[in-house]
């Protein structure tokens, strides 16, 4: 391609391309570059834990099914949102989230703090057929999740990839990933104690899908939904006053 750079016309075409890059990239650089140092401004959350292997698997199911298309995970600083969903979301709460699932549309409600709001049983019934629980709902039925065995063999690889990106998973967590995924959904098994050892006493260990014989995708998704908003309590400690929606009529 060196001949491209010789003729005058070609030089002007290339100069033109460079001008486009100059014009277009600066906005991105100016806006995004400061975000590389944003960890200096993000709130502290020393109590925050990482997702357990089961929760991460559940999160990947949430990603796979495109739940973000109808559910946000970002409570804005507006008064009505805080009253409806709970304290507004902090940047630190999604520090381990790849990708972030803030969403852009609420065909269904925000899920940033749905963890612990409903029972495991409710979630399972709701996912199998939403209209059994909420007759007006237009959410798809996810009955197949309860029928599908969860793939755990590669969870160690998933954790290792996250570790490579800077999420503080220990080598021990990676080595025990499939075992911990199993243990979290089988409270009576030997593997269960390892989960609380590695991820903290507050970690919920439960037969999420109500069936203690097999580990399904339903277990994983419910485990994830139940931990949403509960990895840290930073948002309950130091959030400022909310903003009034500008023209709310009250």
């Amino acid at each position, binding site marked *: 391609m060196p001949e491209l750079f010789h003729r005058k016309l070609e030089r002007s075409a290339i100069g033109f391309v460079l001008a486009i890059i100059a*014009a277009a990239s*600066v*906005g991105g650089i*100016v*806006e995004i*570059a*400061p975000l*590389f*140092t*944003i960890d*200096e*401004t993000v709130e502290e959350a020393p109590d925050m834990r990482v997702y357990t292997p089961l929760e991460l698997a559940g999160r990947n199911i949430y990603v796979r099914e495109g739940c973000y298309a109808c559910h946000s995970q970002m409570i804005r600083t507006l008064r009505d949102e805080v009253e409806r969903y709970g304290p507004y979301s902090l940047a630190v709460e999604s520090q381990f989230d790849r990708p972030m699932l803030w969403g852009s549309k609420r065909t269904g409600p925000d899920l940033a703090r749905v963890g612990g709001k409903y029972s495991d049983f409710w979630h399972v019934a709701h996912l199998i057929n939403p209209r059994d629980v909420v007759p007006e709902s237009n959410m798809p039925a996810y009955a197949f999740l309860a029928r599908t065995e969860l793939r755990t063999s590669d969870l160690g690889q998933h954790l290792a990839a996250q570790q490579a990106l800077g999420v503080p998973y220990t080598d021990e967590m990676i080595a025990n990933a499939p075992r911990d995924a199993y243990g979290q959904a089988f409270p009576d098994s030997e593997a269960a104690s390892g989960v609380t050892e590695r991820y903290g006493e507050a970690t919920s260990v439960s037969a999420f899908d109500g069936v203690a014989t097999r580990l399904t995708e339903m277990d994983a998704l419910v485990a994830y939904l139940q931990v949403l908003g509960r990895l840290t309590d930073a948002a309950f400690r130091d959030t400022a006053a909310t903003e009034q929606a500008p023209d709310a009529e009250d």
Partner: protein
Amino acid sequence: MFEISHETLVAFAKSWGLFYLMGFFLCVVAYAFWPSNRKRFDRAKTSILDREDKPWK
């Protein structure tokens, strides 16, 4: 290694971004209104309406 703090970056973005914008705008206006460019613009404007349908080669 030199450290760039968040404040420095933000200040840079906020001030120089604006100068960049204005400089860029002036260059574009100068190009669009440069008298000797008028001829080539007029040519470009009308040449696409030629009924010609063959490469120049």
